[in-house]
């Protein structure tokens, strides 16, 4: 329970080790007023914006935290507000406040114990194997993956993947029509040229191959360019973040998402896309090439 001079209310109190916590949850980025906690702080607290309003607090206000210790005895301690955070998840804003773990442990007299250990993986593919391992070796009932903690998020990520496939199909269709359109234009623009070539003895196989080679050259130029562009864009936003605050702040906050996105794309994904694009382009060039060999050279050269 957290109390001010005016009012009190229930809340969760999290004791953190700031330097380590910030590596993982980046809550220090969420400070709207004041400053984040430091490792050297003593009896300082950071609370959410909505709690500030409810308890009529401001920076440097004193609050009293009251809770039961390990022996079920009620204890309390005074803390000074040094920072106010605004969460990307509006639901947790008044349900959580942060203090230094050491202060909390002293009040609870539990030495240097911890209650929660978060592990951030480099690769989400390792999620299940690691959680399995942890369950077997250490914490049978106390290991939870993020998918178990937040099944709705996991579902959303999965449906997002399905959306991506649909987007990909739409983009590939657009690509297909783009190539057909470009190459068809290029064939139709050169009806006389192609008709002349066929008249003087260039056979249909060669005309077909000519159009195919032209398409392959265009694709061969376009793919590296596109990949480079994608790589640069993704790298940029991976470093500086893609800020969607202005677009969907409230929606994202309600769903508990951060409004700054740091996109990544694995190189296998690049390879897969290059492969798919190459195949699709190849198939799309068949139709313009087929159109070219169906040209009647007489009609082609008669046109003025």
């Amino acid at each position, binding site marked *: 329970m957290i109390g001010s001079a005016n009012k009190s209310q229930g809340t969760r109190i999290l004791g953190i080790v700031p330097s380590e916590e910030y590596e993982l949850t980046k809550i220090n980025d969420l400070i709207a007023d004041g400053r984040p906690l430091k490792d050297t702080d003593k009896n300082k607290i950071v609370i959410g914006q909505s709690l500030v309003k409810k308890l009529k607090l401001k920076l440097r206000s004193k609050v009293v935290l009251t809770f039961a210790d390990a022996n079920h005895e009620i204890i309390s301690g005074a803390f000074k507000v040094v920072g106010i955070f605004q969460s990307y998840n509006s639901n947790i804003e008044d349900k959580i406040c942060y203090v230094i773990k050491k202060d909390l442990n002293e009040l609870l007299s539990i030495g240097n114990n911890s209650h929660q250990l978060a592990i951030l993986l480099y690769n989400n593919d390792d999620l299940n194997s690691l959680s399995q391992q942890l369950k077997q070796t250490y914490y049978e009932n106390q290991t939870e993956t993020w998918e178990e903690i937040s099944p709705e998020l996991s579902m959303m990520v999965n449906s997002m993947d399905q959306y991506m496939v649909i987007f990909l199909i739409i983009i590939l269709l657009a690509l297909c029509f783009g190539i057909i359109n470009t190459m068809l234009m290029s064939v139709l623009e050169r009806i*006389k040229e192609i008709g*002349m070539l066929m008249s003087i003895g260039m056979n*249909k196989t*060669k005309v077909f191959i000519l159009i195919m080679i032209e398409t392959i050259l265009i694709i061969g130029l376009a793919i590296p360019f596109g990949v480079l562009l994608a790589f640069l864009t993704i790298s940029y936003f991976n470093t500086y973040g893609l800020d969607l605050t202005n677009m969907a702040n409230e929606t994202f906050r309600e769903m508990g998402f951060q409004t700054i996105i740091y996109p990544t794309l694995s190189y296998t994904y690049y390879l897969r896309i290059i492969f798919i694009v190459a195949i699709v382009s190849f198939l799309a060039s068949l139709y313009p090439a087929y159109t070219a060999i169906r040209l009647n*050279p007489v009609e082609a050269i008669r046109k*003025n």
Partner: protein
Amino acid sequence: MNSKTITRPVIRTKSLTKIYNGKGIPVKAIDNVDLEIKKGEFTALVGPSGSGKTTLLNMIGGLDQPTSGQVFIDEQDIYKLNNNEIIDFRLNNIGFVFQHFNLLPVLTAKENVEFVMLLQKKSKNERNKIVEWLFEEVGLTEKLNVRPNKLSGGQQQRVAVARAIASRPQFVLADEPTANLDSQSAADLLDLMTKLNKEENMTFIFSTHDQRVIDRARRIITLVDGKIYSDILQNTIKAY
């Protein structure tokens, strides 16, 4: 008469007929034409617009399937050949000069001429020899590496003639080759064709309605409404 002129016809048409089914009413563009062209002839195909000159040249050139009748080239019934065979036949036996659009704009004059020989899979050595000789003949040695848009209309048509004979064809078909040229360029082109006819015994058949070009021909075939109206040999050839 040219001593090399042999009696064997290089082109022979038999009851050649072409009917176009344009907008409803069928048009008899070529009507039952029997014609022989011998090796080494220098023939003008004349007649008013719409008389069937282009249609006849296209059929002789294996470009346009006749409605009925046959075209024999060296006694080969060319419309008995399948699609790709007839294209290869054109490549090796017939040279073409069109009224417009003869040259590929992205290639240089030399490359344009070389192109047909590449299709014939001639060696680089052979190609270079022929290119050198041809540009000498057409008088454009300095324009070897120039693109068509940097050439005058007359120069372009001379490159087209060079291209047409680079494949060493049996004969050259030229559909109104001088139609877009001024009279001096037209005369130059005719000089070139006459020279190639005399020196190389190259057979030329060209359509025209320019009287000064007609006067340069040895044989004049006049078409009217798709039929041969007259076919004369003239001995005195005027020069301009």
